[in-house]
C-alpha cells in the first residue's frame, strides 16, 4: 500500500463508509490508522500532530488528533460535527463519514449514515455490547446501510482473547436478530497497534477472517443489493433555443441523475404526475449519446414526444410505477432544537419535488436505548418516531427499504429555512 501503487489500477470505484463510536472506543485512532497506513497522512500533517502530542505530554503520536477538526472541538475535547475524510488504496477511493458518538448527536449519525454504503461499529473489547452499540446499530439499520462491520477494538487490552471476542459476537448477534439485522461481519482489532486494520499483526493469529481493509476492498460499492425500478427525478430542463443554431430550436433535454435502475434508448416511459407516456429518443452526457444509463449517472434524457415536463416531475419506466400518494407513513428523525409542532405546516423535499405537509399523527416514539415504543404528542431534537403525514401535492414514492432515493425526504421549516427533519417512508 505504498503511495506509488496509488497511480495505476484504480478503479474498483468508490466506497462511502461511516464509523460509529466514541473517542473512548478508539474511533479516531482507527481512522488515523487507516489514513496513516494508507499513506494518506503527509509529513507536514504528521509533524503538526507530533507537536501537539508532545505538548500534551504523550509519548507516542496520538493518531486521534488527525480527526479533531474545529477550534471549538479542540477546546472542548469533543467532536461536534460530521467530518469527511478521504483515502485511497490504489484500487478504490474511500470517503469516511466520521460521526460523533455522543448521545445528543443522533442527528449527526443519521446525517452521516444517509450516504454510507457500509458502517463500522466500534466496540471496546473490555466493555462489550453497550447501550451505545445498540443505538448505533439501530440507526445504521434504520437508515438502511447495506453492510455492517462490527470492529471489536482494544483486543490488546484483553490479552487478545478469542473467548472475549466470541462472547461479544454472540451478545451482539442476539440483539441484532431482534432488530432484523442480517449482514454483519466481526473483526477483532487493535487500532492502536494496527492489528487487523491494514496489516494482520501477530497477536490475533487465531482469527482467520479478512482484515478491515480486505473487507472494505471487497464490499459491493452499491447502495442496494436488489433490483430497483428506473427512477429519474427531473432536476432541470434544457431548452437552448439558440437563434444561431436552428438544430437546437426544438431541443428539450430533461436533466437529472438516474437515482435507481437503468434506462435504454427506445424504452417506454411514463411521466409523473401527468401520467403521459413516451419513449426514450436519446440519452446524452455532455454532447455524447449513450445507448443506456445506470443508477448514479447524471444524464440528459430526450423523448420522442413533445411533452411539457418541469423540475419536480419524475420519469419512470412504464410498468414500473412508484406509489403516487398524498399521504405517507414514515420513520421521522427530528433534527431541530425547536420541537415538531403538530399544528404547523412544514415543507417536504422529496427527490426534486417539494410539497407542503402536516402531521396527521404520531404512531410511537422509539426509545433507541431500549428499543421500546412510547406514546408521544410532539417530537424533540434527536427523537425518532413513526408518523403519518398529509401532503398538499402528490409525491412518487417507494418504501425506503426498497429504494433509498425515492423513500427518503427532508423536512424544512419555512420560517427559518432550516432542515429540521429526515424521513424514511415505510
Amino acid at each position, binding site marked *: 500500500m505504498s503511495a*506509488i501503487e*496509488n497511480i495505476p489500477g484504480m*478503479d474498483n*470505484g468508490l466506497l462511502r463508509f461511516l464509523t460509529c463510536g466514541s473517542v473512548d472506543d478508539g474511533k479516531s485512532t482507527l481512522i488515523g490508522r487507516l489514513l496513516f497506513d494508507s499513506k494518506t497522512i*503527509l*509529513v*507536514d500533517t504528521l509533524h*503538526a500532530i507530533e507537536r501537539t502530542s508532545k505538548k500534551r505530554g504523550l509519548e507516542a503520536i496520538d493518531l486521534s488528533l488527525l480527526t479533531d*477538526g*474545529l*477550534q*471549538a472541538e*479542540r477546546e472542548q475535547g469533543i467532536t*461536534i*460535527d*460530521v*467530518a*469527511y475524510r*478521504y483515502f*485511497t488504496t490504489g484500487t478504490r*477511493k474511500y*470517503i469516511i463519514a466520521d460521526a460523533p458518538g455522543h448521545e445528543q448527536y443522533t442527528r449527526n449519525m*443519521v*446525517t452521516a449514515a*444517509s450516504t454510507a454504503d457500509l458502517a463500522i461499529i466500534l466496540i471496546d473489547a473490555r466493555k462489550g455490547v453497550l447501550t451505545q452499540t445498540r443505538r448505533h446499530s439501530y440507526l445504521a439499520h434504520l437508515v438502511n446501510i447495506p453492510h455492517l462491520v462490527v470492529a471489536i477494538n482494544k483486543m490488546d487490552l484483553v490479552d487478545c482473547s478469542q473467548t472475549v471476542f466470541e462472547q461479544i459476537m454472540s451478545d451482539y448477534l442476539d440483539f441484532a436478530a431482534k432488530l432484523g439485522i442480517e449482514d454483519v461481519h466481526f473483526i477483532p482489532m487493535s487500532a492502536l497497534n494496527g492489528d487487523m486494520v491494514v496489516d494482520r499483526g501477530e497477536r490475533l493469529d487465531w482469527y482467520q477472517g479478512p482484515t478491515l481493509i480486505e473487507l472494505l476492498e471487497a464490499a*459491493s*460499492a*452499491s447502495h442496494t*443489493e*436488489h*433490483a*430497483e425500478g428506473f427512477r429519474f427525478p427531473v*432536476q*432541470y430542463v*434544457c431548452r*437552448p433555443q*439558440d437563434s444561431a443554431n436552428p438544430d437546437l430550436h426544438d431541443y428539450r433535454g430533461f*436533466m*437529472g*441523475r438516474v437515482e435507481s*435502475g*437503468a434506462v435504454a434508448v427506445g424504452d417506454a416511459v411514463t411521466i409523473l404526475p401527468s401520467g403521459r407516456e413516451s419513449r426514450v429518443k436519446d440519452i446524452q*452526457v*455532455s*454532447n455524447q449519446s449513450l445507448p443506456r444509463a*445506470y443508477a448514479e*449517472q*447524471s444524464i440528459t434524457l430526450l423523448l420522442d414526444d413533445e411533452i411539457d415536463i418541469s423540475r419536480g416531475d419524475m420519469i419512470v419506466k412504464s410498468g414500473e410505477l412508484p406509489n403516487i400518494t398524498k399521504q405517507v407513513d414514515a420513520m421521522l428523525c427530528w433534527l431541530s432544537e425547536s420541537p415538531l409542532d403538530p399544528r404547523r405546516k412544514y415543507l417536504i*423535499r*422529496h*427527490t*426534486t419535488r417539494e410539497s407542503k405537509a402536516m402531521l396527521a399523527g404520531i404512531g410511537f416514539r422509539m426509545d433507541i436505548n431500549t428499543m421500546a415504543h412510547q406514546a408521544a404528542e410532539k417530537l424533540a431534537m434527536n427523537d425518532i418516531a413513526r408518523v403519518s403525514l398529509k401532503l398538499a401535492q402528490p409525491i412518487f414514492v417507494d418504501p425506503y427499504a426498497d429504494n433509498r*432515493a425515492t423513500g*427518503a425526504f*427532508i423536512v424544512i421549516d*419555512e420560517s427559518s*429555512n*432550516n*432542515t429540521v427533519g*429526515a424521513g424514511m417512508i415505510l
Partner: protein
Amino acid sequence: MALESLKMLKTTITRQALTHLDWLESEAIHIMREVAGQCANPVLLFSGGKDSICMLRIAEKAFRPGKFPFPLMHIDTGHNYKEVIDFRDRRAAELGERLIVRSVEDSMARGTVVLNSDDESRNKHQSVTLLEAIAEFGFDACIGGARRDEEKARAKERIFSFRDEFGQWDPKNQRPELWDLYNARSFKGENIRVFPISNWTEFDVWQYIERERLELPSIYYAHSRPVVRRQGGMLPVTAVTPARPGDTVETVRVRFRTVGDITCTAPVESDADTIAKIIAETATTTITERGATRLDDQTSDASMEQRKKEGYF
C-alpha cells in the same frame, strides 16, 4: 438462499459500477443542477485555478447544449499572475459565458478594505469584495471549487453551506445535509455557498484534468523562476514580492500546486512539465497541498476556520 442468489444476479444486470472519477463527476453535475433548479440568481466563482477549471468542465457537462444558468465571477486582488488572468479571460471567451471581475483594489479605493500596511497580503480581504459583489448583483448562491481534503475546517463544511447577511459561516450551527436532498433556501441578503467538488482530493483533480485533457495556465507546469528561500519555504520574486536586502535570489525549476494571490502562494521545486509527471509527483509527495504552498494557512492551526467564519470562501 435461492432467493438471495437471484437477487445478486439481478444486481449484476441492473447495476454498472461507476469508476471513482465518473462517480465524483456525476455527483458534481447533480449538485450544479440542483443550484440551477433551486436558486434564482447563482454565480460560479472562476479564478483560472485548476479546481475552478474542473468546475467549468463539469458545468459544460451539466448544461450543454444550453448556456450556463449563471455568470462566472472572479474576485481579483490585483496581485495575480498574468498567465492566470490571461487564461481566465481566454477560457471565459471560448466558452461564450459572461465573466464578472470585481477587484479588491476598488474596495480599497472605496475605503471598505483598509490594509494594515502597504505590504499586507490582500488575500483575506477578498471576503469584503466578494460580499460587496454578492450585494451588488443580488446573488443568492455562489458556487466554488473548495475541497474538503484541503483543510480541517473544510472537512466539516456542508456541500450547501449557509452564510448569514455578513457572509459568516457558523460551524456549530450548520444545516443537516442528508442523502442528496440539498437545501439551498435563503432569505434576501443571505447566501448559500455551494461546493460541488467537496469530495474530490487534489489527486482526483489532477486525474480529472488528465482524463478530460483540460488546459491549464502555464505556471502549473515546471518552469524556471527567480525565488528566495525564507523560513524553510520558497517565495517567488515578483514586482509585488521583491527580494529584500540580504536575500539571495536563485533561479529554480518550480511549478505551482495552487495559484492565487502572489503574496501568499508559493511554488514547489519540480521538473514535472506534463500532467503525467505531475500526477506521479502528487502520488509520492510528502507534503499537503496547502502545507507546501499556502503561506496564509500556516499562521495557526485554526486560521482557515477563522477566515471562513469571517466570510472567506
